[in-house]
């Protein structure tokens, strides 16, 4: 079983929902990222989503755009991100790590070379925002060949036909984008999310995560009522940004925020 399968099976067995924080690798500086990852796990994160910084993050709101720009000021590359995962794996072999980013850094690396390097580093899943199922067949095949799960977005605009083709391609879990908009948007309608998640479950037995627009414990708890996992990105990055840019302060900020969300999820 993959790390993602093992983790979701264990959560299901204990009746808990997965908490998946997102941080952009290298934000605010590369030396803090691995520490933030460990602190997040200690505070109750079940899966980690690690953003690969990109110069043109088309699907992201201002918070993640700014995080990408800060990381890119330090010239953080996809190779650097994989090194961070390797370093994280020295102390944590259980927590699944999913990369989230855009196509072009992977294109430049080459699909097979990337898949091999990512698997060797200890990556479990790869969510490529601008690579819908029909755009990346050979990339997804290369990932699967190395035991990586391609993770796909499902949107409020996804038709039943698209749900079918996405779910046919997906492994690991599927990621439902809770609203029409970019990451970090405000208005999330829990009832609408519930309806769509029910619909998604007609097409797949995979765990369903929900993200985009979840900013606090209360929203997370409400969404967890219908989903298997909640993904928190922009709010997490904002908390980190409010902290002093040194490792202990960033660890404390991650820990404080995620403990609160964890408590709300478990209540």
């Amino acid at each position: 079983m993959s790390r993602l399968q093992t983790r979701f099976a264990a959560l299901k067995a204990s009746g808990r929902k997965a908490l998946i924080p997102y941080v952009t690798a290298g934000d605010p500086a590369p030396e803090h990222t691995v520490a933030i990852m460990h602190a997040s796990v200690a505070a109750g994160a079940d899966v980690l989503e690690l953003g690969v910084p990109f110069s043109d993050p088309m699907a992201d709101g201002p918070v993640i755009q700014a995080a990408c720009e800060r990381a890119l000021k330090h010239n953080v590359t996809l190779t650097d991100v994989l090194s961070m995962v390797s370093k994280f794996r020295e102390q944590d072999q259980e927590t699944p790590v999913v990369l989230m980013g855009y196509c072009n850094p992977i294109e430049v690396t080459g699909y097979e070379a990337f898949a091999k390097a990512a698997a060797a580093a200890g990556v479990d899943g790869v969510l490529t925002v601008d690579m819908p199922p029909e755009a990346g067949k050979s990339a997804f095949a290369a990932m699967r060949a190395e035991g990586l799960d391609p993770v796909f977005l499902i949107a409020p605009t996804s038709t039943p036909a698209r749900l079918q083709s996405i779910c046919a391609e997906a492994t690991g879990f599927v990621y439902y984008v809770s609203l029409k908009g970019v990451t970090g948007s405000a208005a999330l309608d829990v009832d609408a999310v519930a309806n769509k998640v029910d619909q998604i479950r007609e097409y797949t037995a995979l765990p369903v995560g929900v993200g985009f627009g979840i900013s606090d414990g209360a929203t997370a708890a409400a969404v967890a009522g219908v989903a298997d996992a909640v993904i928190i990105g922009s709010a997490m990055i904002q908390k980190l940004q409010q902290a002093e840019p040194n490792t202990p302060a960033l660890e404390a900020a991650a820990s404080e925020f995620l403990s609160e969300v964890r408590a709300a999820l478990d209540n």
Partner: protein
Amino acid sequence: MTAKNLADGFDPNVSMPDANGHFGPYGGQFVAETLMEPLAELMDAWQKYRHDPQFLAEYEDDLKHYVGRPSALYLAKRLTEEAGGAEIWLKREDLNHTGAHKINNCIGQALLAKRMGKQRIIAETGAGQHGVATATVAARLGLECVVYMGAEDVERQAPNVYRMKMLGAKVVPVTSGTATLKDALNEAMRDWVTNIDNTFYIIGTVAGPAPYPEMVREFHTVIGKEARRQMTEQAGGLPDAVVACIGGGSNAIGIFHPFLADSAVDLYGVEAAGDGVETGRHAAPLCAGRPGVLHGNRTYLMEDDAGQIIGTHSISAGLDYPGVGPEHSWLKDVGRARYVAATDKEALAAFHQLTRCEGIVPALESSHAIAFATKLASELGKGQKILVNLSGRGDKDVNTIARVEGIEL
């Protein structure tokens, strides 16, 4: 094949793009899932109306009575003399309503938006020509209009910003990334994904996800169709070469496409060499970039070794873009078109030359095409004919040129 420049890889009988929007390995739909269904709806509408007689009649009527087409074909006699070789013929897209070729596409997409029941139009713009053209059609149809423009471009193209505002558009300066055209496109995509129910995104060039590259091309091929007929009527035959500037590549594909099967006609796209391609400060992905994925399509890009898109430089805001339409990438690879570059300096010199000897003030973008065409004219020699797409007029650039030359207005 006897054709002198018809490369082995180019088959004029193969129609591009394929059903999935690919031009060979280029193009496609590399967007987030939320946009896939809206793109499918756009594709359906485009396929439904592109051959619809009523739609086409309305489009052609607007081109004639609102845009002022056909645009003139003009033999630049004094420029030809100065260049000392082939005849230089100018396709006068600068005479169109709003001052550039951009309006052809905006008219077409706005008619499509109306049929799709969209009440709100958004656009990205670099030099402001596409923004002005979009604001113009939105004003005419009574639609809400928001134009995204890099903060740096807002600064250097102030007259066009003012024009857009007078036309009732909201101009949003984009400060993220490099604050130029590519970032304006990112921001317009973010707006679209947020407001897809009521919004139509009028992309201004032959880039973006399918069906945009093909749709925008089709709305601009009127340029090449007219020029082909006019060359036969006025110049006594087809040109030996066609020259156009390339940012995203819409004016170039518009004039190239009707000549693709004419194997004796050489096609030259002129990119912006900025300070010089060798300096790295340029906007010439076809000359000095490599294939990658940006803004929904696979195409030649300016990127670093890690796959990050790098900043571009050109005196011309309209060419200051790190990518290029996917069809140009394909035409480059199969050898049907050649891609060259002209520097800021060469473009400025061409700007002054055309202004002085023909009384035509060209846009800085089009000045790149003029710069290469005069060189090519002297190489080709007398008896040959060059057709240049004079894609826009230079009124908007007067401030920029004065600033570059240290003149206070």
